């Protein structure tokens, strides 16, 4: 399988006044990969993801996303990515279908295309019956799946998921990861931040952050092997201890 670099970051630094949120981050993400960004709250995950999405400007460093420069080509980057935040970001007073149509519309998709593709999507999610229900009337698990499907509705090259499973029960989380796998199989790169270590096991590659720095980066298996432990929880624990002590 040919693997092309889709996100390339070298020495990314982001400072807020004197506080260094991202301290010389460097990593590469390959096409079709599920890339997990791990760390405790305040480790700098969200700052980094915001920079990659063009929501925030880096202080310095070399960053290319989907082949575009993060300083000068943010417009092109925005067209090539999808984004889902921890709040699911659907409009509660719009119906399921209206949400799909709205987000499809702001990505400039054609009305005909939106119509046929949303039929297919609703069918796949088993939501055809509730297409005209308001979001506030459907359960959280469904909202989350819908939010994710909308984030990849315009076929982006990369989808960024910022703690997508916060506040969701374990069963729904499993189903959600199934959806992520399907998406990665269809060739969309998935960049996901989380602080659930069991989710890290699902990733092709994980990058553990602490206090603004990358402290470990490899596939889950290699990390476990390297630290001589059996699960990611322990890996994280060891990594965290190394940094602190």
């Amino acid at each position, binding site marked *: 399988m040919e693997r092309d670099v889709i996100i390339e970051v070298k020495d990314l630094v982001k400072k807020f006044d004197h506080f260094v949120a991202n301290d010389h981050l460097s990593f590469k993400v390959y096409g079709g990969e599920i890339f997990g960004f791990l760390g405790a709250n305040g480790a700098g995950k969200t700052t980094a993801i915001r920079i990659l*999405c*063009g*929501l*925030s*400007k880096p202080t310095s460093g070399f960053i290319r996303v989907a082949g575009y420069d993060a300083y000068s080509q943010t*417009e092109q980057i*925005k*067209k090539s*990515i999808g*984004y*889902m*935040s*921890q*709040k*699911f*970001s*659907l*409009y*509660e*007073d*719009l119906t399921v279908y*209206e949400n799909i*149509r*709205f*987000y499809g*519309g*702001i*990505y*400039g998709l054609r009305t005909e295309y939106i119509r046929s593709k949303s039929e297919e999507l609703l069918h796949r999610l088993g939501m055809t019956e509730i297409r005209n229900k308001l979001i506030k009337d459907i359960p959280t698990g469904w909202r989350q799946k819908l939010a994710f499907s909308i*984030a990849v509705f315009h076929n982006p090259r990369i989808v*960024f998921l910022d703690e997508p499973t916060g506040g969701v029960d374990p069963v729904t989380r499993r189903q959600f990861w199934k959806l992520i796998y399907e998406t990665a199989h269809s060739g969309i790169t998935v960049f996901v931040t989380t602080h659930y270590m069991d989710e890290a096991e699902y990733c092709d590659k994980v990058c553990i952050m602490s206090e603004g720095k990358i402290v470990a980066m490899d596939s889950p298996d290699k990390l476990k092997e390297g630290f001589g432990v059996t699960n990611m929880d322990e890996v994280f624990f060891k990594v965290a201890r190394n940094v602190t002590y």
Partner: protein
Amino acid sequence: MKRFWGFVIKEFYHILRDSKTMLVLFGMPVMQMFIFGFAISTDLKDVKIAILDPSSDEITRAVESRILSSGYFMLESRLNAESEIEPAFRTGKIKEVVVFEPGFASRLQREGTATVHLIADASDANQANLIASYTTAIINDYVSKASQTSVPMRINVESRMLYNPELKSVFMFVPGTMAMILILICALMTSISIVREKELGTMEVLLVSPLKPIQIIIGKVTPYVVLALIDAAIIIVMSYYVFRLPMQGSLFLLMLETGIYIILSLVLGIFISTNTENQQTAIFISMFAFMLPTILLSGFIFPIANMPKILQWLCAIMPPKYFIIIIKNIMLKGSGIMYVWKETLILISMIVLFIILSIRKFKIRLE
């Protein structure tokens, strides 16, 4: 463009589906108009007046009895000379003096026209205006009925306001209500709706999308421009048909100025939303920064000229003040753009200022 319209349609859904928003948008203007409108127009009853009638003939007596039997007026005293008018007002008992010219009936028969002077105590400007217009209406009514049975006649009614000749607060409630409602809807509603997207996290998703920030902002405010213009139209129609407010000037100019004021209010709403993170704060700031000053410091209720200097300076930075001056001039005096260009220019410069401030704030947030 298609992206943009999709956005506008979404905004309309938000507004139309929220019954509270709809109530504020359309219930409030109508309610405010009635409150302010009737608060100043209901209490005309048994107003004490004096009459100066040197000719005391058949016609003047007929007119007098019309006035006194209307239920609105009560005779307090009869005066004998013009020099008694001023002292009569000084006693504070009477609100109006009706003055017939000497030889009233004979003049009316000879020349077909005679004059009645109405002198009102305009220290309470609203009431004075009301009293004068009621008296005028009664006299006109008499004339039209008398003309049907006998020879056509004309009585000129000339009213004069004592103590406050410019009637500074008369009919202020329409311009004032309009200024308040529009700034409230535009500034409050847009700031809430933008801040709500921030709270929900949808703003981030919009910012990540290929939509440009300017498209998001314009998409957000477009529905409110439309709704605010509808509100302005409701207020104007109501003031014309329900409260008989004159519409002297150009309707086009009025709507144009209203449009400028609406845009300013929206820009203020955007400015608030760039500075706040939650809806409560946005509501709080809008209320304190706009609602209260519009009521208290715009000349809406309290005449600015009577305020202490320091408050007058504060008034000078209140957008509603200028808008009220503009609509008063257009609606009541029929002035053209020549007379309101200065105020218009002030409003436009405020728009520019706040756009610049908002953009700067927005950029800082991105970095």
